[in-house]
């Protein structure tokens, strides 16, 4: 019965479709582990990073009543006595000291000094029962006179909500003022705009030098016989497999004022005093170019290997000069390799941290250095995540631009 049914053309098509579907489901189920892996190790952390950069639970969790009282406050005259009462109630109700600590940290990143103020007040609580609001206010002021200053109250009022744009704003040198209007931060503490520009500048220079050094080398490798090319490729790959720290240390030995490079130059009589090659921008760029060069050479080489040299010969036999033929016929065919290598080197160098930290000066540090500082030293993870989000966005924007310019998918050869 079933056999006869399946001979009907319409049902055959349906059956074929079903088989096709089953096959596709099988194929998808094969990629499922990888998909899950990507979601868990890549998308979830990035998502939580983005969430953390706008999350602002500290004040809302602990000072709910105070924030409510302050919501009607005009933020420019002394806060009402009821706010003092609410603050004392809120702070006394905090059970875990860690919550008070988190609150102190959050407010301190807004107003320097809030940390000691909050913690000292928290430790002195609870106050005596049955005080009038005025008495509570006076008691609090006697505890720490800083409670008379508006800035601390403004910080509490401003951070009453669970979400904040402050970290993201701060990471591009903007801030919300007391009334919530967005404006620029003072020039003396505007750092991240310059640091972001510096990060991209260093990465661009490193990419350019990698291309200038890598292109001829990759071309030469692609013209050699497979055996010779493999031998030489190992020379490219051995440093690639060496730890970054080892290579950084090696550059310190080479570049320091008493190092090999300076001594040879002085021995040759080319210079009288050692050149400053280390702990400045130059040292950072030299080491980064060296470390990232293989990421340029490998995609270039694989693309160049696939370009048939008959085109070049044809162009020359048709009357082109060898140089013109190289630039007009050969080079355009290697654009995918240049694009892939350039993008790879650029994106890797944007995130560089150890090399500039060890070989650079105070004004050669890239954005990652400050992300690490906020994570480890200041333990202000909201700020660290916001800086990370800015770096991520900038990278994505650049990648989109690259796609528009090149108008093709990223290919690795």
């Amino acid at each position, binding site marked *: 019965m079933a056999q006869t049914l399946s001979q009907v053309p319409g049902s055959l098509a349906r059956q074929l479709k079903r088989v096709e579907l089953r096959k596709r489901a099988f194929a998808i189920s094969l990629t499922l582990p990888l998909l899950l892996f990507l979601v868990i190790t890549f998308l979830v952390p990035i998502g939580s990073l983005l969430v953390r950069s706008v999350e602002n639970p500290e004040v809302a969790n602990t000072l709910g009543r105070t924030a409510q009282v302050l919501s009607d406050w005009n933020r420019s005259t002394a806060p009402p006595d009821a706010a003092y009462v609410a603050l004392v109630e809120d702070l006394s109700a905090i059970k*875990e*000291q*860690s919550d*008070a*600590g*988190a609150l*102190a*940290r959050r407010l*301190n*990143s807004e107003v*320097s*000094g*809030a*940390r*000691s103020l909050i*913690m000292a007040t928290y430790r002195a609580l609870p106050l005596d029962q049955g005080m009038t609001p005025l008495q509570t206010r006076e008691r609090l002021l006697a505890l720490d006179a800083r409670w008379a200053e508006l800035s601390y109250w403004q910080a509490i009022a401003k951070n009453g909500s669970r979400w904040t744009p402050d970290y993201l704003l701060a990471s591009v040198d903007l801030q919300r003022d007391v009334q919530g209007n967005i404006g620029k931060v003072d*020039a*003396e*503490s*505007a*750092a991240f705009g*310059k*640091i972001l520009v*510096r990060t991209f500048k260093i990465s661009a220079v490193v990419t350019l030098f990698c291309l200038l050094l890598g292109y001829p080398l990759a071309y030469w490798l692609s013209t050699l016989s497979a055996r010779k090319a493999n031998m030489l490729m190992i020379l490219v790959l051995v440093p690639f497999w060496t730890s970054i720290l080892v290579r950084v240390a090696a550059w310190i030995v080479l570049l*320091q*004022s*008493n190092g090999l490079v300076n001594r040879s130059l002085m021995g040759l009589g080319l210079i009288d005093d050692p050149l400053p090659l*280390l*702990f400045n921008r130059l040292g950072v760029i030299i080491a980064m170019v060296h470390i990232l060069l293989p990421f340029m050479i490998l995609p270039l080489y694989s693309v160049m290997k696939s370009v048939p040299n008959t085109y070049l010969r044809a162009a020359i036999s048709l009357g082109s000069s060898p140089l013109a033929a190289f630039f007009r016929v050969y080079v355009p065919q290697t654009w995918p390799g240049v694009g892939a290598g350039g993008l790879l080197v650029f994106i890797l160098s944007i995130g560089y941290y150890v090399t500039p*930290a*060890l070989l650079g*000066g*105070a*004004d050669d*540090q890239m954005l990652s250095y*400050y992300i690490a*500082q906020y*994570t*480890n*030293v*200041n*333990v*202000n*993870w909201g700020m660290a995540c916001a800086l990370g989000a800015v770096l991520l966005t900038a990278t994505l924007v650049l990648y989109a631009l690259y796609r528009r310019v090149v108008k093709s998918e990223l290919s690795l050869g």
Partner: protein
Amino acid sequence: MKLKPIVAAVAVVASFSSFAETQLTVVNFGGANGNAQKKAYFEPYEKSSGNKVVGVEYNGEQAKIKAMVEAKKVSWDVVEVESPDVTRGCDEGLFEKLDYSKIGNKADFAPAAIHECGIGTFVWSTVMAYNADKLKTAPTTWADFWDIKKFPGKRAMRKGARYNVEFALMADGVAVQDVYKVLMTKEGAERAFKKLTELKPNIQWWEAGAQPPQFLVAGDVVMTTAYNGRIDAAQREGKNLQITWTGGIYDLDFWVIPKGTPNKDAALKYIALASSADAQAEYAKNISYGPTNTKALAKLDAKVLGKLPTSAANAKTALQFNVTFWADQGEALEKRFAAWAAQ
């Protein structure tokens, strides 16, 4: 039913491991300091308790402790932390409160060493250092450090605002006892950064504590700020590096116990041993950091004492690092430093 042997095996292994010696993970900053701790604290503790000590090096990243405590998977038992981190970590509930009755008599310790979440273990100092083979006259004040006519050449300073703003104010003529009073004001911070700007073209920045003595030995710089223990270690290797103690900034490092460690009792016993007069005296003999247990001083000879930041001569003009000031102002000042460096 097949599971039974496996369950049994797991139970046997688990019971064995609970009988086995406790393994105590002690985290410090490594280097010469780590070696001195190994000799003075780890080895005697292993001998007396039968527990094994696993030493782990870190760079003071509090993020690791925070992550462990938040995830409730604490694998570090005792950690050496710098003074700002004791208060901050204590406020945020990262550390266990210490039971001093299990450690020793509070009165035996320098008052600055006593904290509810940690106990000071040694006093160290950030000082001015120079290579006596290269400099004919010794620099004696921070004003000398800034004087590029009298002492031409580069100077090395730690990358960051901490210590440098204090040194700048002292170079600008602020008395030691007034440094933090001045720095607290807006004008004071302004003044410090202005003074740093004067020296900016002549500064080579260091990142790790091992770098300043290297710079001095290699001749990259004529003077540097440095941790006194690192200079001491270089002296022990026969290098003629010298310290100018005037206006040095001294501070304490503390032992803390991350909250929720399964080995809290063993950790307390370790801290008790490491806080005893004998062990601290032995430590000070290996690296010139000052004991916090005042009874340890009596066990040291004049030569060792003369190199400690705590000795009367060296401490006379020294500044105590103000933890509260840096806990409040640190983040803002470091950000300002980043902006200043970019100018």
